[in-house]
């Protein structure tokens, strides 16, 4: 069953197109990932879906009902966790959660009970009475997620939930997302971490420059690289000196240079490693390691969008 349907959704800002006619749907109970570089239109799409931004054209439906013109009714069923924690600095964790529950019309007893339950589940019990401004970045993010689900929404929008926080907290947050999913919450997740999307999402859409360029399950998307073979060589010297020579010897192979003398060789046919190893050794480049790589979603993303992962993550100064 489709919980959210976006049809030909467009957004223009002062004559500039931020989102250009995107179409997608989210099924009830799934984690749907929206993957793209900074400025691709991920947050703009979330803002249109949640009513924080007006839709230039197109429709959005919640459980089959168009809410483009009556977003308030739909907002009651949504939980929204923005890319930056936006709770009240002067309130403590407990007060923030209770206040957020009140915004959704929850009775005092119910919101206090839920706040206690969430603080326990999210491991924030000890910080419950500390002001929000005293929380670490990871704790702030956890409390912001808790605030997004206090009213038990049917769909949770998570905008870059692990961006800018340390590895341990990012891991905890990913586990929380999996727990929420296991409890039946539908999740719309935007991220620019491909491995995070691959690990968490059942279906994904790649968005680049306001357009969805691919959509499907992880398995469907992986078919893009079916038949492709990759081997990474760690060499004892600089490959660039023999680059031209290599290309003339092995014209069928595609070469990508990595860091620390790692060369990634892509081929549509199965590799025979011995001629490659012999080629390097004859040119005084010892082979320290040869590793066959299973194509990942990262290869699919790079192939489809032409955007290098490193470049995408550097845009936000990530971990």
């Amino acid at each position: 069953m489709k919980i959210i349907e976006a049809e030909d959704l467009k957004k223009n800002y002062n004559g500039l197109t931020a989102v250009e006619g995107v179409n997608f749907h989210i099924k009830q109970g799934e984690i749907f990932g929206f993957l793209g570089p900074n400025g691709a239109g991920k947050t703009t799409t979330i803002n249109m879906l949640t009513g924080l931004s007006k839709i230039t054209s197109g429709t959005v439906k919640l459980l089959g009902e168009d809410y483009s013109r009556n977003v308030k009714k739909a907002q009651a069923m949504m939980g929204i966790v923005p890319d930056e924690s936006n709770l009240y600095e002067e309130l403590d964790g407990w007060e923030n959660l209770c206040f957020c529950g009140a915004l959704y019309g929850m009775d005092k007893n119910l919101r206090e009970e839920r706040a206690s339950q969430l603080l326990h589940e999210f491991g924030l019990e000890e910080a419950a009475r500390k002001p929000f401004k005293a929380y670490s970045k990871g704790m702030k993010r956890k409390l912001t997620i808790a605030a997004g689900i206090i009213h038990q929404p049917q769909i949770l929008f998570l905008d870059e939930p692990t961006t800018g926080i340390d590895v341990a907290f990012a891991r905890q947050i990913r586990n929380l997302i999996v727990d929420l999913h296991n409890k039946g919450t539908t999740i719309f997740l935007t991220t620019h971490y491909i491995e995070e999307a691959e690990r968490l999402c059942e279906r994904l859409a790649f968005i680049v420059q306001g357009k969805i360029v691919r959509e499907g399950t992880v398995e469907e998307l992986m078919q893009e690289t079916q038949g492709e073979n990759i081997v990474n060589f760690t060499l004892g010297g600089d490959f660039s000196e023999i680059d031209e020579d290599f290309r003339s010897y092995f014209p069928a192979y595609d070469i990508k240079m990595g860091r620390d003398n790692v060369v990634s060789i892509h081929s549509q046919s199965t590799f025979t490693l011995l001629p490659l190893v012999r080629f390097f050794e004859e040119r005084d480049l010892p082979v320290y390691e040869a590793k066959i790589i299973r194509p990942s979603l990262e290869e699919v993303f790079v192939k489809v969008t032409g955007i290098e992962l490193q470049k995408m993550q550097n845009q936000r100064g990530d971990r």
Partner: protein
Amino acid sequence: MKTWIAFANILIKDMRSYYLKPPNISWGLIFPVAWTLMFFLRSPVPVDVRDLLPGVIALSILFGTTSMLAVTITFERKSRSFERLLLAPISLNLLMLSKTSGAILFGVINAFIPIIFASFMTGLSGIRWPMVLGSVILIAITSTFMGLFIAVSVSQVFEAQTFSNFFRFPMLFLCGLFIPLTDLPVFLLPVSYVLPLTYGVDILKTAINDNGLISVPLSFLSLAAFSVLLFAYSIYNVNRKWIH
């Protein structure tokens, strides 16, 4: 959905977080006292506290409400916590009413501080209290909505302060608070009559000293009209500027 729960909690949070903080309470006390003392000290002839009272009441409300609301909303927008309110399933009108109710209440409380001080210094017999209360409430509403109008016109906290003063300081001299409208140059009178505070102060003058110039029903009507216009224009601007 029980929207009144959201309304009440926004109001309570704002009162606790902003309006009932010691610096604001002291602002509410110091400002009227300072103005009253200034007239006592500067005036070559004895000053009747009762004559000053309408102006000081209006001033306390104006300064207590406009900048507080403008600053708090601009601050919440900067920290993005205001987005949380925009994403809540309550109508924009109700949301803005809950955000402004705290400032209105604060303004009404501020108005009674000079009245309490005055009660120690002069007799308050013969004052038409229902009329005072009505005008205090309407001045608080129009001043708050003026703060809302300022909040939706600026993006930085310091701009909110500057823009508030741009409106408030001319109003001190143009609305008959301390300089009677009859003493103003004729060319300034049209400006006085398009400022809502003129009507509020005039009602207070009638209620306290029976020396107002404008008919009381007309003043009430004007204040109500200013309130509706300022609120409607602010909502229009919120829709246009904040929900892009």
